[in-house]
């Protein structure tokens, strides 16, 4: 078992590496490279992705979020943020729909606002 500090360091290293390579197409990392993220790492990753989005580095932000999702697929914020960035900045409506839906499925309360967005997307994608 890794200690939390060790895991955090490994995560940051991975984030930096991914951020540096975001501009060029990279092959999908092998399955065995997926590392499960703990809560702190997910928070760090999510916020870092949003910072990248603030800087206009949308693809890097999205990729980081996808990484986070692979490490913490049950984290709704990651799906939500990936859906927003995909919808507004990458104009990838399919991916946005997917992750809105995943977000909705992971959240217990019935978010009508998000439901409306899903409906709008489904309509626009028809």
């Amino acid at each position, binding site marked *: *078992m890794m*200690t*939390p500090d060790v895991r955090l360091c490994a995560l940051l290293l991975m984030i930096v590496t991914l951020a540096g390579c975001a501009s060029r197409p990279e092959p999908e990392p092998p399955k065995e490279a997926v590392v499960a993220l703990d*809560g*702190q790492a*997910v*928070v*760090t990753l*999510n*916020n870092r992705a*949003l910072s990248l*989005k603030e800087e*206009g580095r*949308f693809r890097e932000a999205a990729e980081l979020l996808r990484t986070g999702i692979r490490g913490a697929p049950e984290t709704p*914020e990651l799906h*939500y*943020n990936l859906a*927003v*960035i995909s*919808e*507004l*900045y*990458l*104009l990838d409506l399919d991916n946005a729909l997917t992750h809105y839906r995943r977000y909705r499925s992971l959240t217990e309360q019935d978010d009508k606002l998000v439901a*409306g*967005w899903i409906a*709008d997307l489904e309509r626009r994608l028809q």
Partner: protein
Amino acid sequence: MMPGYYRRYSLLAAGAVLTAMTTLVSAQESFRVELGSDGETIADMRPVFLTYESRPMPAISPAEVARRYQRLFDSTDEPEVRIDALNRLANIQQASGQVVQPDDAEEQRLYREALGSYESVIERGSFHGKLDELLYQMAKAHAFVGHGEESIQRLKQLAGLYPRSPLVPEARFRIAESAFAAGRYAEAEAAYGQLIAGEGGDSLKTKARYMQGWSQYKQGSGAWPRAAASFLAVLDQSMPTLSHIGQVQGSEREVIDDTLRVMALMAADRDGAPTLEAWLAQAGDKPYDYLLFDRLADHYANQRRYGDSVAVSRRYVNDHPDHSAAPAFLAQAVDVWKLAGEADRAREARKEYVVAFSDDADYRRLTPNYQQLWQTFAHRLGDFYYDLGERTSQPRHFANAAKFYEALSNRAEAPGETLRLAGDARLQAAQYDQALDNYRHAAYHTSGYEGGADAAWAAMTILRDGLANRIDHAATLPELSAEAEKFGTSYPADLRLPALYADIANRWLERGEPVYAQEFAEYVHRLEASTPEERYSAWLVLGEVHYTAADYRLAEHAWREADRLIGSGSLTDVTRADAESVRRQLATAVYRQGEVAQTAGETDNAVAHFQRVDSVLPGSDIAIKGRYDAANSLLLANRWQAAVNELVRFRSDFPAHPLTGSISDKLVLAYTSSGQPVRAASELMETAGKEADPWPRKLRAAELFHQGQAAERRDTLYREYLATGPEPASAEEHIRLQTMRSRLMDSGATSDYRQQMVRAELNSDWHSEQTLGWAAVAAMELGREAAEEFTGIELGHPLEQSLARKQAALQRAQERFAQAEQFDQQAVRSETLYRRAELYRVLARDLMSSAVPKELNDLERMQYQMLLEEEAYPFEEKAIELHAQNHELLANGEYSEWVEKSLQALAELFPGRYDREVQWMSWKGEPNDDA
């Protein structure tokens, strides 16, 4: 008279011999015969019994012995003793060689007394000796005392009584002589004939033949053929062969001479040479025949029959052209004509002589004397024709003179002067090639000729005159040069040589052959005798040569030397203009060295050369140019500050010089290159006002002000220029104008320049990325200003009017944004989309919020509001559409602040689709599963 025979007598002397001979014969005593040194008289003869004549003399003196015999003669009465004493007395004188004999009177007494003794002896018949001898002695005694007839009688007795006596030949000779002297020539001829035909007396036979000839001659012309035969016999006796002719001596020579003379007399009295030839034909060939003709010629000459004399000589030469005497005959012809005072004929005779032996083989056969004579004649003929040529100015006479001189030169031991004369004559005859040959021969192939240098110079003169077309002789400069070098080699100390070399050097220079020009100019300097003038000339040539060869250092040296000679005062013909020319050339050479150094990148040397031109020719144009180019050298070497200093100094020193006009540009270059653009610009501004069109310089200045960050001074110039309303005539001009506007915009200028820029770019056929970008920026700014104006217009009552103003403002803003997109869509599209969208959003908002007219009631107010919403809705839709277009740019990866702003606007206008809030997370510190 012939040489080799004996010394020549003059013709007049020869004539005198004949007269003397005749006188002698007629006056002599009966026994006295003058036949030369060996012709003894009877008195001289000695009795054959007096054999002691060779004994030694007694111890007493001969005079004493003679006195004793004379006392014996006088004291004795014995005839025999007295005869003996008389003989001994005569022998003493013979043996002692002293004059012991008594005087003539005493001797006459002795012989008269002796005659008595002889008669006594004969009468007594008691003489014990030979009677023939006694008769001979008696004949001698009679002859001595003047009893010629008695003497002849005793001799006839002797010959008759004792025909075999050895004394008979002489007795006959004496008898013949007696007959001859008495004028009985036929008798004499017979008597001589008896002697010749008889035995013995060989020594007398030649004389007898000679006298027989004379006896025959005296008998008249009818006997002359016999006389000729007799005389030829005499000559045969003495000169049987040619070799004997030269050996004839003494009295024999005189006999031969007289024989020849008489032969000549006889022949001349007839028809001359033909008579001689007839006599000789009869007698056969004679080795001495030429002597006969010679004497005949002499005789004619003596008789003043000069033509006949010369004719005889020529006749013999014509018949015997190869005879050794031929030259003498021909020479004699010259003398004869001279004697006759016929100078022309004498000259023709000389010419005949010269021509006769002009052939080398013929000349070699001449004796040295005649060779010398040939040379003398040839020289005189040459002189004559030369003089004649000078008197008459006829070239043919000079040509004739030259022929004689040339012929003479081949044979003279020292032909130098003759060759030179030949050269002079050919020159006067305009026969230049031959003149050259003669002069050259005299000058270069005649050792020891003192006038060789003058001859060589004469040849040189021909070539120079030919080269200058002063005479009709084709000469070339190479030929003249070769001649001059030969002259210099042979006569290196000749004082004319330096001037010659200097002249040739100048000729080569004029011909454009610097190598040869240099060669001869350097010759001048190697000669010690060269005068300052000649050296000066040579230095000038060398200066030109080196200058042409771009060897300016040596050119400077040459001209400096020429200048030094001028300064020394040793030149007399140098004018002030010449001196100035030299100085100018010297200065030019120095200047050129500066150019060379400059080209080679040797800046310091170049500057030094350029600057020292002024020391050579102070204040001259070239000196000023030197100063100017010194600065240029510094410029070329990027030595900016030094160049600036020189340029400023130049402008200060020569403010009015034409070159000063370009100083400003050079200063601008120096300032610019040395990072002083503001100074460069100021320099341009200083001089711009002097130009007809100042703007090129001002605009350059503006650019330099820009580089020097002197924006205010730059912008002033831009404003002034743009105010002139320039229209671009080229892309460059358009760009430049737009650049000015751009910079003015950067300096915060008014929107006028933005409008100018947009308008200029719209109207221009030329664009660049830069101008399009600048125009796009300007249009955007104008658009923003219009948008701001649009936003500031409130919609109030009456709405139509305010709305119209607002729509007009919207329209202006839209146009500016469209112009900006036209110029540079890529750069401005996102912003224009945003701003255009905002125009519509603001318009929709302002419509919605515009004041409702107060007079409306509630219903109307509600209807009015609804109407406004309906009016505003399309604008809002348009705003959403444009923002959405801007948002769509993200599909191409184009993200900008204007996209983000459009997204924010969309979030307000269409929140259901665009209003999204991301979810930031925070760590809540959940316990570690592993803890």
